[in-house]
């Protein structure tokens, strides 16, 4: 049945759905983020939860203190090399299906602090990121937009077939190796399975 036909039926008061849609609809509207702030962006994350922006409209107001109960990690702020192993550990402790939002320039790439010796140049070196929200810090509206984008992403996930969602594929690792504190840097400095540095060839 095509989408147009279904739309036509809906106009007549007949709601057709599939288990997949119902399941994704439920999941996407009750995302529980991990209560976990890193830096400046965390304040905007709190602001997004307060009365003016009210993240509860999107069903994501239950910030869980424990990673075991959360299914969304909002990496809100600069991840330092000292903090990176702990972020990866928190990610490993979260149950599948889990999603990650990199909020702010620092979480995406190191941002203004990119030149720092103790700053991780993007959390995507160690854990997979679903949504990137640029800004320094992003406004709470931007976070809400990122959240709705994530909801779209969840709604589009397939439970079976060739394009099955990541968390249902058997080869999905779920857990990622935790880097060690080295003598000069993190060991390894990134997860090669996830990240390969982009090369920007300059024209001669």
């Amino acid at each position: 049945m095509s989408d147009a036909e279904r739309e036509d039926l809906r106009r007549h008061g007949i709601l057709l759905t599939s288990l997949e849609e119902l399941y994704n609809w439920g999941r996407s509207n009750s995302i529980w983020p991990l209560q976990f702030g890193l830096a400046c962006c965390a304040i905007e994350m709190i602001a997004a939860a307060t009365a003016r922006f009210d993240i509860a409209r999107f069903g994501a107001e239950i910030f869980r203190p424990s990673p075991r109960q959360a299914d969304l990690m909002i990496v809100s702020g600069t991840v330092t090399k000292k903090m990176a192993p702990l972020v990866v550990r928190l990610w490993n402790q979260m149950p599948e299906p889990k999603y990650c939002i990199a909020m702010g320039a620092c979480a995406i790439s190191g941002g203004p602090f990119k030149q720092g010796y103790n700053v991780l140049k993007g959390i995507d070196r160690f854990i997979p990121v679903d949504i990137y929200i640029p800004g320094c810090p992003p406004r709470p509206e931007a976070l809400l937009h990122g959240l709705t984008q994530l909801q779209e992403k969840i709604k589009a996930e397939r439970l079976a077939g060739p394009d099955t969602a990541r968390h249902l594929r058997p080869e999905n690792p779920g857990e990622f190796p935790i880097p060690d504190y080295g003598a000069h840097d993190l060991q390894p400095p990134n997860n090669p399975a996830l990240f390969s540095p982009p090369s920007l060839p300059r024209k001669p």
Partner: protein
Amino acid sequence: MESLEQLRDRLLTRFPAAKVELVLNPGASPEHSLLLEAASAREIALFLRDDPFVKLDYCSNVTGLDWPDKEIIETKKVSVPDPAGGPAKVVEEKTKRLQPGYLEAVYHLYSMALKSTAPVILRLRTVNRSDQVTLPSLTPVWRSADFQEREIYDLYGIIFEGHPDLRRLLMWDGFKDHPMRKDYVAPDDFEWEPTPHGVVHERAKAHYPLPGDRLGQTPAGQQPGTVSPANPTTQPEAKP
């Protein structure tokens, strides 16, 4: 409030064995400082804290500073007599002198009791930057120096003798370097992209003269955008 010269003279009469030197600040602000030597620093600090005339009971700020070895080229004009009997030639003779570097700890002191508005600044200098980097800790005198001295130990590598708990403050325990030193080379794990902070990248390039395109240049004989296995873009850090 007495001037810094008067304070220095008073310290010298009180501690005849100590060496107290006035360091003038050439800048616009009239903040001059007293250079103490390591042996007598804690006694003098205690005296300054309890002395009723200055009563420096509040140590506001402790800063580490790194002054690397400096090569000074001195040019002297020497007249060399001409062996042929002509007039003496004036030749510029250049002598290179290596001014040894040192690490420095700077303490900004105020008086809360007297509500002083100008700081009294103490400076302590180590002998060199490599092995003789011990200074007396002033944490027993002012506890506010506790975390700040730990931070200096962490970032500069000054060892404060008599500090109750000298550990790294900001970096992790297994970390070996002292990153705020001027000659520290950060692990070069970012990709080249044009930013206003190009200086950092230029410096990194000098340290890592890699043939690969780590810093954006494509090596000869390689298509842009490809990574040859012999020369991967994620190379382990070459440490000096």
